[in-house]
């Protein structure tokens, strides 16, 4: 089936992303900068927590946005492209941003070599993040794997809005769960499901979601990191008429909408359209996402 492109009429008029030279002097809103590593340490057997001090602009990053990291070269390997990493936390006052990453290949192995005081070239903030409606009383976030890193900053942002959060976190084993303490610190309720305890299957997650909706209500769904769990939420969102947002992943080269390598298909009113995860997302309407 040929991928159809976004039809002409569906496109909003182009927003001027860069002001013409006549206006105010031009200023970069996306910068590649050498940030200084504050901390880079293991969280568990798979994940590392990286904190860097950065510019004011970078520290303004919003939940769901990401950075493109120019990873150092680990011995014998040469990652060439930057690697996308979700914002895990930002501290505008201290001018710091944090990432939570899993060591999987050359790039993340390179990140793992960073020591306090080293420099890391970070480019961002990039992409469209989560939108939180201040009127929402309660949202449910479902995540798995690196998706938990992406959802993490939601907890704080929701709290600032006075919105309650229930998080359903999925992992292979309990000791591989991350972000639980962070969510709980911001008053969120965390329900952990794992493969090792046989609680992570879609059926059980659906059961939990139905119970949560029934018992405590829900104004919106958020998800990242598992297309199987996303499908469960899509079904329930349709059933209960809930809005939802999903943060998608895709391999990236430029991270800023130039190269079209990061496209995924979306269902826009019955039509399959191709959109750039880095530029149109990474956060998309839950109902439009295709697994």
């Amino acid at each position, binding site marked *: 089936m040929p991928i159809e492109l976004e039809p002409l009429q569906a496109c909003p008029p182009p927003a001027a992303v860069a002001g013409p030279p006549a206006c105010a002097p031009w200023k970069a809103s996306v910068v*590649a900068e050498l940030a200084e590593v504050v901390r880079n340490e293991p969280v568990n057997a798979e994940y590392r927590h990286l904190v860097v001090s950065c510019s004011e602009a970078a520290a303004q990053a919003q939940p769901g946005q990401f950075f493109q990291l120019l990873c150092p070269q680990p011995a014998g390997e040469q990652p060439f492209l930057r690697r996308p990493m979700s914002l895990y936390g930002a501290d505008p006052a201290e001018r710091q941003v944090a990432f939570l990453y899993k060591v999987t290949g050359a790039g993340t192995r390179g990140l793992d070599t960073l020591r306090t005081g080293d420099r890391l070239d970070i480019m961002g903030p990039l992409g469209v993040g989560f939108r939180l409606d201040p009127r929402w009383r309660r949202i449910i976030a479902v995540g798995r794997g690196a998706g938990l890193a992406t959802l993490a900053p939601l907890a704080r942002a929701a709290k600032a809005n006075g919105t309650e959060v229930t998080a359903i976190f999925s992992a292979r084993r309990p000791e591989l769960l991350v972000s639980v303490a962070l969510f709980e610190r911001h008053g969120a309720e965390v329900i952990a499901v794992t493969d090792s305890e046989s609680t992570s299957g879609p059926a059980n997650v659906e059961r939990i979601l139905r119970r949560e909706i029934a018992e405590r209500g829900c104004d919106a769904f958020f998800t990242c990191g598992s297309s199987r769990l996303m499908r469960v939420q899509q079904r329930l969102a349709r059933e209960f008429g809930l809005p939802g947002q999903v943060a998608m992943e895709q391999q990236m080269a430029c991270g800023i909408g130039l190269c079209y390598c990061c496209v995924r298909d979306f269902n826009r009113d019955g039509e399959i359209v191709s959109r750039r995860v880095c530029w149109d997302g990474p956060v998309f309407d839950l109902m439009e996402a295709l697994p």
Partner: protein
Amino acid sequence: MNAAVRPGPRSVDAVDLSVSIGGLRLRNPVMPASGTFGEGLGKALDFSRLGAFVTKTVTRELRAGNPLPRVVERPSSLINAIGIPSRGVPYFIAQTMPHYAAFDTPLVVSISAPTAEGFASLAAELSIPGIAAIEANISCPNIEEDGKAFAMRAESTERVTRLLRAATELPVWVKLTPNTGDVPEVARAAEAAGADAVVVANTILSMAIDLKTFKPCLGNIMGGLSGPAIKPIVLRQVFQCAKAVTIPIIGCGGIATAEDAVEYMLAGASAVQVGTATFLQPAAMTTIIDDLAAFCLHREIPRVTDLIRGVVIEEADEPDLSWLDPLP
């Protein structure tokens, strides 16, 4: 350069960076490579500083582009098989052009078509106010089967260029492929048929195989290599083309620094396009422009055009081993 005879510039602002490409005057010789540029970059660098804008290749018909994965990295390089996802001409005019309208930077539109006539009619259709030049991408290795393209042969290049020349008043730049055995010959054909400039070159047809699945790493099986790895190859082609044609050559392949740009200009390029480097450093082009001025200042070169074709070829004589002897 003898400073007494011709004094060097006194500040970076005194360095004349402007170049002229087939009648089109550019404020400096640095512009994006097609397919690696878009309005998003306006967040990272000041569009009003670029020598020109060059759009992603536009086609008449709607095109979806290639299946995923569309890129894979290799040492010092990237292989891409994006294809040419295109929303067609009306979308381009209505939605893409306005992003660049507010800048007095020339807008070069890259076009592609499956036939020579298609190229010509597309060029005619896009010869409208707001467009400063047509770049004919007759070399994209992903479109034709097995990497074949117009630019693989002098005859097909000559034909498409001749039709393009007749179809538009705008300057016509012809973008060549590095995948042919005789790039200078193809460049000569483009010149003979009336091209105002040649862009040397597009990506080099390449492949990578995933060792987990034994499948090609790219959805399209093959793709085009770009980035620092290809610079020595394309630089050689620019040098060879400079001996073959007198029209301006726009160098493109692996340029990431002002030094790379200088190397290309010395080999024969009048301007350069920057592609993959932007993916690693979004402000690469403006950094190159700044560093180019600094290079000229430092070397007492008043005009950047002095670099063009400036490579010094000497009669083979005694090898220069002076670096082995640190004595004054």
